C-alpha cells in the first residue's frame, strides 16, 4: 500500500478584494485542482513548479494544516487534518521560510524540548543527536541562540529538529532556499543518507534543478494547481531539457545569425541567444560556426531552468 495517497484533491481559497469604498468582491482562487498521485515508501520525491503553483498548499494538506475542498488524502493510513497529532509523531516537517525552532533559545535547547514533545527515550535521543550533529555539522553553533544563526546554520538546525523523532516521512518545503553551494551540498548529502540508511521517505518542494538531479528518484511537476508531469528526472530532461542556449556577444549588432543546428530566439543589440539541441550539435561546434560569420567577443551557455522546463511542459499539455 502506498505511504501517501491523494485522490481528486482540490483546494479553493476565497480571497476578498476591495472594490470601491465599502464593497468587497469575493474571488475564489483554485490553488490545487484534481490532484491524484501516490508515493511508495522509500521514495525521494521532488515536487516542483513555479511560484504559486500549489506546492506549499499540497504539503500543508498532507501535513494536516489545510483541509482540502474536495478529494481524499491518506498519509501513512491517516487522514491528516482529522488525525493531525497522531500523524505529527510519524512525520518530520520543515518549512524553509518559517522558523520552527525557539528563536531566543540555543539550538540545543530547541532540540531538547522537541525530544520531550515527541517523547523520544533518552538513550535513543543521545544516539540520534550524535549522528545528526555529525551529519549536519551542528557542533560549532549548537549552543548559539537561534536568532544569531546564519540562514544555512538555521536550516541545518531545522533539519535536525525535523529528524529528531525518527520520522517515517519528511516533508521539506524549500529546504535549500537561500543556501550557498557548500551548505546545499551538505543538506543534500544528509537527505540521501537518511533515505538510504533509515529508509526515510522524503517529499521536497524546490526551485533548484540541482536538488532534483542529485536527490530525487521521482518528480512531480504542478502548474496552476494541476499535475503536469510524473516520472523520473532523466526522462524529463530527455524530453524537455535537451535544449540549451548559447549566448554570444558580437563586436557589432547584426541581424539574426544563421548557423547549422541552432536557431536564434532573441536578439538584443550585439547579443544573440541561439537555442540548440544537445543531441544534434554541441556548444563548441556552434561557437565555431558563429565565429565564421561574425566577430565573436564573448559567449556563455545557459542550462535549462526548471521554470523553463515547466513552462514548456505546460504549453504542451495545455488543452
Amino acid at each position, binding site marked *: 500500500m502506498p505511504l501517501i495517497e491523494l485522490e481528486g484533491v482540490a*483546494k479553493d*481559497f*476565497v480571497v476578498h478584494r476591495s472594490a470601491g469604498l465599502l464593497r468587497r468582491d469575493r474571488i475564489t482562487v483554485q*490553488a490545487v485542482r484534481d490532484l491524484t498521485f501516490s508515493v511508495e515508501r522509500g521514495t525521494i520525491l521532488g515536487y516542483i513548479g513555479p511560484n504559486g503553483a500549489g506546492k506549499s*498548499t499540497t504539503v*500543508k494538506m498532507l*501535513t*494536516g*494544516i*489545510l*483541509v482540502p475542498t474536495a478529494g481524499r488524502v491518506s498519509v501513512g493510513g491517516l487522514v491528516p*487534518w482529522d488525525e*493531525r*497529532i497522531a500523524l*505529527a*509523531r510519524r*512525520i518530520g*516537517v520543515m*518549512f524553509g521560510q*518559517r*522558523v*520552527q525552532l*525557539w528563536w*531566543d*533559545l540555543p539550538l540545543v*535547547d530547541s532540540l*531538547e*524540548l*522537541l525530544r*520531550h*514533545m*515527541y*517523547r523520544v527515550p533518552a538513550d535513543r535521543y543521545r544516539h540520534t543527536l550524535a549522528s545528526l550533529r555529525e551529519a549536519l555539522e551542528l557542533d560549532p553553533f549548537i549552543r548559539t*541562540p537561534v536568532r544569531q544563526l546564519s540562514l544555512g546554520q538555521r536550516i541545518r538546525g531545522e533539519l535536525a529538529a525535523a529528524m529528531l523523532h525518527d520520522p517515517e516521512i519528511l516533508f521539506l518545503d524549500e529546504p535549500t532556499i537561500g543556501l550557498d553551494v557548500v551548505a546545499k551540498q551538505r543538506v543534500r548529502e544528509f537527505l540521501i543518507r537518511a533515505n538510504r540508511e533509515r529508509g526515510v521517505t522524503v517529499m521536497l518542494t524546490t526551485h533548484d534543478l540541482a536538488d532534483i538531479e542529485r536527490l530525487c528518484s521521482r518528480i512531480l511537476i504542478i502548474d496552476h494547481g494541476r499535475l503536469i508531469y510524473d516520472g523520473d528526472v532523466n526522462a524529463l530532461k530527455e524530453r524537455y531539457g535537451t535544449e540549451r542556449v548559447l549566448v554570444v556577444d558580437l563586436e557589432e549588432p547584426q541581424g539574426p545569425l544563421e548557423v547549422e543546428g541552432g536557431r536564434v530566439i532573441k536578439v538584443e543589440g550585439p547579443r544573440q541567444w541561439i537555442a540548440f539541441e544537445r543531441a544534434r550539435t554541441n556548444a563548441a561546434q556552434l561557437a565555431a560556426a558563429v565565429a565564421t560569420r561574425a566577430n565573436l567577443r564573448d559567449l556563455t551557455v545557459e542550462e535549462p531552468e526548471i521554470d523553463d522546463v515547466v513552462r514548456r511542459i505546460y504549453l504542451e499539455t495545455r488543452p
Partner: protein
Amino acid sequence: MGLDTLRLDWELARRGYARYAAYPAATIAGVFVNTVFGFMRAFILLALFEQRDHIAGYDASATVTYVWLGQALIMTIYIFGWQDLALRIRSGDIAGDLIRPVHPLRASLAFDLGRALYHAIYRGLPPLLVGALVFRLVLPADPLEWLAFVISVGLAIVVSYGFRAIYNIVAFWTTDHRGAMFLGAVAVNLFSGFIVPVAFFPDWLAALAHATPFPSMVQLPIDIFIGRATGGEVLGTLAVQLVWAVVLLVIAERLFAFGVRRLVVQGG
C-alpha cells in the same frame, strides 16, 4: 496526562525562565523604572492620607504596600500587553506549532509560567524590597497567609495568560492585532485594581470590575497579602481566581480552535 507531559511542561517552563534570564541588562533597566514609578505612585496616594486616616478601609501603610505589590506584579502578570502568540499567528509560524504533537496553547502556557517565575523573582522582588526599606509595609504574619499569597499570584498569572491568549488569538481574524492588544492592556490596567484599588472605585464601577476576571490578576492577590481577605474569605478569593483561570483558558482554547479551523479551511 502522564508524567511525560508534566516533564514537558517543566522543560518548557525552564526554557521560558532561561529565555528572559538571558537579558540581565533589560532586567536592571526594568527594575529601575518600576522602582521610580513605585515612589511616584506611593507619594501621590500618600498625599490623600494627609486629609484623612482611612479611604475605603485602606490606611496609609496598606496603601503603600498595595502600590509596591502592584509594581512587583507588572511584569509577573505582564500588565502592559503581550504579543508573542499573535506574532506567530500573523507571520504564519503558527503552522510549525500545529505540526507538533502538543497543543500550542499548552506549550505556550508552560513557557509563560517559567517566564513569570523569572519576572516575579527579578522584576518583582527588587522593587518590593526597596519599597519595604523606605516605607513601612504591611506584611502577613501567618506563614499560611504567605502560602495563600503565593498560590494567589500563581493563579493570577494563569488568569492573565488566559486573557492575553484571547486577545492574541484575534490575530487569526485581523491583520493588525495591536488594537486588540492595546484594548486588552487598557482593560487590565483600569479594572484589575492596578492604577487605584478597586475599593476606591464608586460602588457601581467596583461591582462592574468584580464581574470581570481583571481583579483576579492584581487586586485579589494584594487583598490576601494586606489582610483585606482573611480566614474563609481567602479560600473564597482563591476559588474566584481558579474559576476565572479555568473559564479564560477554556475560552482561549475554543477561540484558538475556531481560528485554526479558519486557517486550515480558508488558508492563511
